[in-house]
Structure formats: C-alpha cells, structure tokens
C-alpha cells in the first residue's frame, strides 16, 4: 500500500462531482431514449379512461344534462355529473386560495371549457364518442371578460353561490364579483410623498394573461383498491404530499390509505401545482367502478381550462427628485382571477409576493393594493416559471423605472444605478416588508453594461435612428435593460403555508453498507435535474461521489413530507434540508471514525471524503469505511446504521437577482423584430451545477421571449378562447430562439446552509422585462411611453402606426 500515492484533497474533491461541477444530468439517458415513465405511460390491468364534456359557453345556466345516448353506447360505463358527486360532497372542491371551485358544473357554467360531465369508458375512443353524445341544454347569460367591468353596479353576478357573502377568504368583498383587497405598505405616507414630489411618472402596466403550457399536459391514474381500502394516484403533481393531505381532507379517506405518486413529469411551470377536476373525477370514478381510471387532458383542454398565469393590470406612480433619486412607489393592481380564485399562492398571500414590486431599488416608502375580481375566464393565476406573482412585480417596477427615466430625461441604466440597494445595506428591509438577504447589484450591473459594451450600443442605436430618419432604413434598434430581484424559497413556516401546511421541506438519507446512498426528498423534479444536483450537494457534504447517490422523489409512501417543487423553492428549501441531513450523517460518521481510529471525537477532522486524525492525516477513515463500520461494529453509545432526516424550515426567503440586456431591431412596417443580443447575468448565490444553471437560463429566457413577444391567452367578448391551439399560442421553435450569452456573479445567501438561492425562474422574471423594454426603447425617440405585451407583429406595427411612423 505504501507505494500507492494517496490522491490529493483536490483530486478527491473532483472525484466526488460535488458543488460547482458541471456534472452531466443523470436523468437524460432515459429521457433522450424515450425511456421516461410519465403518467400516460402507466397502464394498469382493467384500467378505464375518463374525459370531460366541456362547456362551449363562457356563462350559461345548465338547464339539463341528458346522458342517456352516451350511456347507450357500447364501451361507455358511466357518466358523472354534479348530481352524482353531490352526495359525496365532491361537486365542489376547495382551491388553494381559500375559494371553492366546481368540480362539475353545478347549475351553471362560468368559463368556456369548464368541466360539465365526466364520461368513463373502455378506451379513449369510446370515451370520445360518449363525450360527443352527452346533450347539455344551456341558457346563455351575459358574459364578463373585462375585469374593470366586473364591478359595475349592473354587472352580471357570476358567483351566485357566494353572492351575498360580504367576507371572503381574504377580508371584505365590496361587490359580488369582487374577491379580495390586499394591501401592503404605507398608504397615506406614500400618497403624501408622491403628491409633494418634484417628479412623478404615472402609468398603467398590463401583464397579459398567458399560460405555462408544459410539454406534458395534466393527467392522472387513480386506483382504488377496495380490498385493502387504499387509494393510489399517479399524477402530474408538483406537490404530491400536499395533494395527499388535501385529497384526504376532502374525501375523508384516511391519509395513510392514500398514496400519491408523481412519476416523471414533463414540465410544470406552475401548471401542475393545483388540484383539478380531472383528479377528483378520476378518483370518484375509480371508487365507483372499482377499477383504475386514467385521465389525461389534451393540449386544447390544457390551454383552455387548466391554470392560466398573470393577467394583472398594474397602475403605478413613482416619484423622484429632479436628479433621479426615487422617493416613493404606489401601485394599484386589478387582478383578473377568472371564475374561481384558484391561485396557487401561499394561503396568506392572495396576491403572492407582489409586494416585492419595489424591485432592486432603495425606495423609502411604498404602497400596494391588489383587488381580485371574478370574470368569465378559466381559473388559475399560477406562478408560471416564477415565484408567486414575482414576474408581474418585476415587470411592473422595470417598466416604471423606464417611464420615470423618460420623465427625468436621463438614461435608465444610470437611473437604476443611482437607486440600487447598496451592497452594505444588506440585509435590507424593503418598504413593503421583505428582508432581502444579500446582493451586490452595482457589481452585477457594471459587469453587464461592460460585457455588452453599453455605450457603444447606444452609439449604434443613434446611427440606426439617423438612418431611419433619413429614410435609408425602416428599422429601429431597441436596447432593453432589466435588473430584477426575485423572492424565492417559500418559505418560513411563520408566514408561509398552503391550506395550513407549513412550507418547509425535507430530506432523508440512508447510507448503504458499501458506502453508496439513497436520498429522498419532499420535492419533485419536472425537468430541473434534482437527481443530478441534490446528489452534488450531498457529495460535497458527506464525501460520497454524486454518482453513488440515488435520488428519489414523488412517492408519498416513501418520501419525507415536503411541499413540492415550484416558485424556485427546491434548492432554497429542500436543498438546505439535504445539506442539513448530510451534516447529521457527517456528525455521526465523525463519532464512528473517532471510535475506529481510537481517538476522541474532537481529535478527528473532516477532509473531503474522510475523517483524519488532527495532525496525522495519514491516519484516516474514509466515508466508505465508516459506512461499513456503521453496519458491522458494535460501537458503544452509537446506534447501528447511518441514516438521517432533516426537516428544514427556512429562516428567510432567498433573493436571486440579475442584470439582463436585450438588443433588437424592429421593422416598423411589418412589426417583425430581430433579436440581436440577449445577455443574462444571474446571481443565484452558490452555483451547484453551472451547466444546469445555463440550461435553466436558456429555457427561462425562451419562455420570457415567448411571453413578451407573442404568447397569450386571448378571449373575445363572448368569452371564447381565441388561442386554444399551438397555431395561435406562441411556443418558440429553435428557429425563433436567439443565441443567449450567460454570465454570473456570486453573492451567497447568508442564511442558506450552502449559500444557494435558486435560479430556475430568474430568467423568466428578468427576461420578460428586458425583451419588453427593448421594444419600448426602440420607439422611445418618437414618444412611446407604454405599450402592452405581447409585442407580436401587429401590436408592434400598431405602435409604429400610432406614432405616425407609417406616414
């Protein structure tokens, strides 16, 4: 043994593929070979299928549902309506936002695509025939699609079930179509500051309704085993444990008899957080028929009915001194929630974390009020690749900064720099009550402006403008800036819960005798690569190579309780739990090592993958040796085995941030934009896997591009969905996707065990503002202050037209 050279610490460290390694994703082998196991891949013996009869109308009374022709079809087993669910109390279900939602139309329908009846049959074909044979008689009612008309005195009452309730889940309701008013900050003081300010910019900023549109739609397989009384549901669940608890509470099936399994999930983006009628109907149908039921929605169902995002009308006022120091921010938001308030926010936050809308700036006083209203549109309001309402907040402040810069006549890059929270101000308490953990905004901003050569860009832009004015070009150049601060990692149990479930998360680790391990978490990957990155966290914590650690999530019978994966919470919360569980393992390993090395516990020290005797590094026990010893040695005072579990309640949120720059050229005649540059600098604290971060940033930027440049859920005045297929709902292809330049700074989170902040959603939060600001910037010389997204060809064309550029 003596002639074998002991590897250095660095060599041993690199063999672990721990923190900071661009480790290849372990998930990809199966995904790229078509070997993933998604809900629709699950086939059980005797399984039947279910699908919905959906409402073609946005608002109507349901006079009669005739199921006889459908039931007469061979292969159709059952047709459930609200009347069948009523005896079980399941014709309505609670929403995550404290409202309730019809599972199947109970006397009326409130949006196009609403679930009216559930047809169960032998296969998809029989079910589709059955759906087409259910005859529903409707009496049309007047439709409300404009949230500003919802509260008019003579507006049709949408939710007759709660029309007389003056008090909702979040306080007083002032109109039958009003859901809540939510306020933060200092109203009077803010008004006073704005009234007396030297400069005020006042603007309405609309963040339009869009949709997460994951590649895999929502679905489930419900299987009630009547012999042992156990219900198993495989489904597209971003929060399997929460689904189990909610399912138990509403069905009265004891929680230990419910097993929720999230298999591989093909993207979530917030779309798979909520509970949908399809899950309830499948469970009921399985209980009724005694066989497993599969329900998988199609693309049109998904776009039309399943959890939209955004739809915030944000009226803002921002005040400043003449030389550009911001003095106050006021915002009133009208939030269009659709027919039911089914936002997937922490329960105490009906407008999510919209009060992060002071952004990256040191704003002394601020006030925010959000009014939620009902309209005849699909419910939802989920956090589409962002923490709760954070893209809305970030878009709002980044537009307000731009309109303020216009008013002040100064460069918006300079205005931002002048108002950033300074490095030494962290931890910083914002005017709307959040405690920002860490940041170095000036460093990131300066790095970004230098990387893109901002001054040169402005020169190029001037030249292009001159060509345009001289009639030599019909193109304008726009430079879009954004600096964002996210608030992720929900969250501290003291203020974050969903239906009373604290938003902690958990990790459980078992070390096997031969020194490999399995770790289970309360989260569930939908493409984020948890099996890769959480193993890296552990590798660095417990000195076992990442490739020797299996990661398991999504089975409530085996995984520890956690609140799931959304709002960039996995790394901040479950990642912290993972590190903490690893530290427990290491603490026990230290005792075992000391025993084996015949020294006192305090006389050994950790060295990458081993404990060695202080001052005598040649005397050591590797984690592999320690693991085996834990299974075969009787160590006095130490239990056999090497396992740990950690439930982590984060002390604070984390605040990832970044600086993005987009450059585009816009043809004023066709409205076509050509994206020339996208630069994204992210500070997500400690970087676990740079390659995965880069992939996350590319993906998030592509969604940001989609949202800002064309993606929307549009309705006509009758409440018909106008964007129900991927022909009209914009998903960029490789062709439309530009090249991305990514960059970073590292400002670790001081309260997170490894300093990580989360990154998956940052590019969507920062990207939308940067793309939209580029469009606005191109038209700035002609007096444009605000034009609503999406900036698709015709809307950009209309900006040019309204500014007289077509004359």
């Amino acid at each position, binding site marked *: 043994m003596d002639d074998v050279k002991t590897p250095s610490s660095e060599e041993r460290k690199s063999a672990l593929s721990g923190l900071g390694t661009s480790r290849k994703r372990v998930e990809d082998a199966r995904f790229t070979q078509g070997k993933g196991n998604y809900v629709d891949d699950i086939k059980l013996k005797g399984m039947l299928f279910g699908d919905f009869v959906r409402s073609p109308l946005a608002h109507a009374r349901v006079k009669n549902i005739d199921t006889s022709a459908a039931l007469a079809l061979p292969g159709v087993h059952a047709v459930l309506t609200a009347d069948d669910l009523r005896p079980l109390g399941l014709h309505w279900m609670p929403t995550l936002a404290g409202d309730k939602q019809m599972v199947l139309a109970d006397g009326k329908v409130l949006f196009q695509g609403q679930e009216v009846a559930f047809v169960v049959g032998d296969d*998809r074909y029989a*079910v*589709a025939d059955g759906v087409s044979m259910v005859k529903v008689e409707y009496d049309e009612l007047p439709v409300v699609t404009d949230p500003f008309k919802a509260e008019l005195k003579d507006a049709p009452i949408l939710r007759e079930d709660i029309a007389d309730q003056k008090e909702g889940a979040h306080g007083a309701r002032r109109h039958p179509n009003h859901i809540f008013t939510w306020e933060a900050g200092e109203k009077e003081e803010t008004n006073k500051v704005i009234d007396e300010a030297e400069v005020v910019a006042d603007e309405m900023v609309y963040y339009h309704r869009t949709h997460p549109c994951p590649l895999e739609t929502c679905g489930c397989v419900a299987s009630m085993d009547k012999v042992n009384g156990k219900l198993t549901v495989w489904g597209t669940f971003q929060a399997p444990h929460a689904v189990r608890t909610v399912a138990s509470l509403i069905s009265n099936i004891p929680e230990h008899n419910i097993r929720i399994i999230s298999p591989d999930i093909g993207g979530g983006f917030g779309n798979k957080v909520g509970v949908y009628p399809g899950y309830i109907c499948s469970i009921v149908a399985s209980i009724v028929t005694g066989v497993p039921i599969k329900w998988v929605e199609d693309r049109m169902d998904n776009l039309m009915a399943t959890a939209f995002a955004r739809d915030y009308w944000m009226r803002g006022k921002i005040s400043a001194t003449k030389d550009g120091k911001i003095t106050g921010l006021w915002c009133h938001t009208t939030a269009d929630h659709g027919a039911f308030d089914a936002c997937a926010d922490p329960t105490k936050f009906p407008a999510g974390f919209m009060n992060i809308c002071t952004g990256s700036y040191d704003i002394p006083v601020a006030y925010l009020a959000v009014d939620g209203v009902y309209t005849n549109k699909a419910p939802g309001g989920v956090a589409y690749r962002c923490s709760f309402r954070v893209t809305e907040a970030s878009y709002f402040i980044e537009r307000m900064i731009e309109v303020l810069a216009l008013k002040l006549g100064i460069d918006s890059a300079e205005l931002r720099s002048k108002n950033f929270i300074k490095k030494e101000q962290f931890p910083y308490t914002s005017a709307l009550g959040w405690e920002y953990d860490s940041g170095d905004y000036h460093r990131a901003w300066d790095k970004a402006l230098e990387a893109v050569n901002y001054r040169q860009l402005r020169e190029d832009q001037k030249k292009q403008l001159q060509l345009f004015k001289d009639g030599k070009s019909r193109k304008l150049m726009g430079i879009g800036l954004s600096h964002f601060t996210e608030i992720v990692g929900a969250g501290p149990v003291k203020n974050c819960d969903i239906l009373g479930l604290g938003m902690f998360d958990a990790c459980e680790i078992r070390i096997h005798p031969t020194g490999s391990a399995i770790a289970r978490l309360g989260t569930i990957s939908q493409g984020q690569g948890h099996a890769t990155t959480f193993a890296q966290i552990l590798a660095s914590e417990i000195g076992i190579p990442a490739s020797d650690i299996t990661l398991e999530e999504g089975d409530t019978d085996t995984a520890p309780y956690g609140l799931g994966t959304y709002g960039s919470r996995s790394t901040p919360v479950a990642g912290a739990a993972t590190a903490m569980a690893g530290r427990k393992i290491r603490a026990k390993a230290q005792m075992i090592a000391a025993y084996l090395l015949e020294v006192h516990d305090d006389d050994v020290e950790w060295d990458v993958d081993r404990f060695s005797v202080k001052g005598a590094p040649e005397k050591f026990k590797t984690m592999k040796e320690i693991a085996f010893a834990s299974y075969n040695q009787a160590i006095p005072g130490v239990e056999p085995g090497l396992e740990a579990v950690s439930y982590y309640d984060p002390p604070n949120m984390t605040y990832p941030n970044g600086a993005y720059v987009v450059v585009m050229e816009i043809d004023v005649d066709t409205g076509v934009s050509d994206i020339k540059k996208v630069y994204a600098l992210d500070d997500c604290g400690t970087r676990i896997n740079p390659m995965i971060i880069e992939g996350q940033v590319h993906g998030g930027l592509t969604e940001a591009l989609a949202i800002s440049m064309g993606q929307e859920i549009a309705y006509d005045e009758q409440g018909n969905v106008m964007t129900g297929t991927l022909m009209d709902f914009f998903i960029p292809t490789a062709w439309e996707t530009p090249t991305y330049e990514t960059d970073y700074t590292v400002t670790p989170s001081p309260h997170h065990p490894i300093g990580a902040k989360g990154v998956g959603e940052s590019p969507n939060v920062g990207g939308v503002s940067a793309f939209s600001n580029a469009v606005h910037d191109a038209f700035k010389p002609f007096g444009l202050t605000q034009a609503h997204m999406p900036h698709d*060809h*015709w809307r950009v*064309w209309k900006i040019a037209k309204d500014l007289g550029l077509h004359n």
Partner: protein
Amino acid sequence: MIPSAFKFYKPDNISKAVSLMKDFGEEARVIAGGHSLIPIMKQRLTDIKHLIDLSGIDEIKGINITGDEISIGAMTTQVELINNEELFQKAPIIREASLQIADPQVRNLGTIGGNVANGDPANDMPGLMQLLDATYKLSGTNGSREVKARDFYEGAYFTSREDDEILLSISFESPSGGYAYEKQKRKIGDYATAAAGVIIKVENNKCSSASIALTNLSDTPVYCNKAVDMIVGKEIDNDLLDRVTKTCVDQSDPVADQRGPVEFKKYVAGIVIKKALKRAIERV
C-alpha cells in the same frame, strides 16, 4: 382529440378511388398528407364515415418534365418538390415557396395535391398555382376534365371540384423571368399573415409579362389581374411599383384573426407585394 369512427380504404388505382367516392358520396373524403384534414377530424369539426387514402396510387405521384411542360402528380410531397433538381431548373419558385411551408416534418408528408385541392385560403400552393397559371386535372365518375387554377377556387374550402372527383395532377409551363415568393408569418409552421408571389419579364426596363398572386389575403387565393394589366407594357419605376402594389392590396380582402386586424394585414400585404416585385425584378 379523437375522431369519430370511420372506415379506411387504400385503393391502388384511381378508378377504384373514384368508384369509392361514387359509392359513398358526401360521407367520403380522400386523404393525401392529412395535415389539414386530420386536425379537423380530431376536433370533430367534420364527420367522415369513409376515408380514402390516396397514398397507394402510384399513377398520381411524381414529377414529369417534357421540354417546358411540367406535370406534377397530386400525391407528390413537398419535400420532393424541394429536392427535384430538374424542377428547380425549370421553375425555381416552387422550391422557394415550398421551403416556406410549415416545417420539414410537415413537408415530408404534405402533398401538392392536398395543398391545392383543400381550398384552404391559408395554403401557399393555390396562390402559387394561380401565379403559374397552372391547370388541374380531375377525374370523376363522368371522366376526366381540366380546370384552370385561376377558376378553381370559389370560397374558403369551396372549389369547383365535384364530390366524386379526385385531383390527379397539376401542370404548367416553365415560367421565365424573375420570380419571388415573399411570406410573413409569426413563426415556423404558421400560415402566412400575408404572402405574395411574382413572376415578371422585363426587357429594356419595360415589363413584357407579369403574374402576381396572393396567399391568405382573401377567402380564396387572389390572382391580381388588375395589377398585371397595369404593369405589363410599362416602364418600371418605383412609382409604378407603388401603384401596382396598391392595386394588388385593393384586390385583397383579408379577415381579422390572431395574426392581426384587417388594416394591419392589408398594410403588410403591401410590404410583401412590393418586396416580391422588387426581388423578382432584380432576378430578371
């Protein structure tokens, strides 16, 4: 997204296909590439009891070129149109336009016959065939007949094809002169917001012949006969091109959709028509 039940037939010659059409009348439809038909069947917007697949009929496949006479079988796929070098030599606009249809997966299955016979105003080939003054050969119970592409389209999804007729082939003469097919769309795979094709001959800066046609700017393709009359025999200058463009736009009649309102579409039509004119003239 599951169609109602239908019977499927795959005849190996035209007479069998025609006889199936005759037997089943309105309940029958032929299927070529299926890109338009299958989605509407899945959405149950149409109820077809008998589906007759033409992909087994070899006599309506392939490209035949004799001198300047070009004949393309209805079941020739778009990818074949793109890859055929001889066709490219004789009628390069076909490749230029075909490459702007959808994406490679669609073009691998999509056929020229399905594209022209469906009567969808958003399809690119009908406008292109009007541009080329192509002739469609149809076969039905009462035998074969020929119809000019410029006379074939009656309204959205309505054509002069009888219910029992099947499109066999499309023929046209090799065009000479400059050419261009310009299309604005929202993304790869989308139909045109506005598209225009131009073929033009210019001698001594004077236009000696021209053809102009538009796609997705009315409920049928638009052959711009008034604009053609206006340009032929004239000296080409920018002012003339502006007037020709305006005349084309005046002949268009687009409808509003998610791509934008009518006013926008007409404006963009003007841009793509002018671009096509200029590029075609440059290529003379």
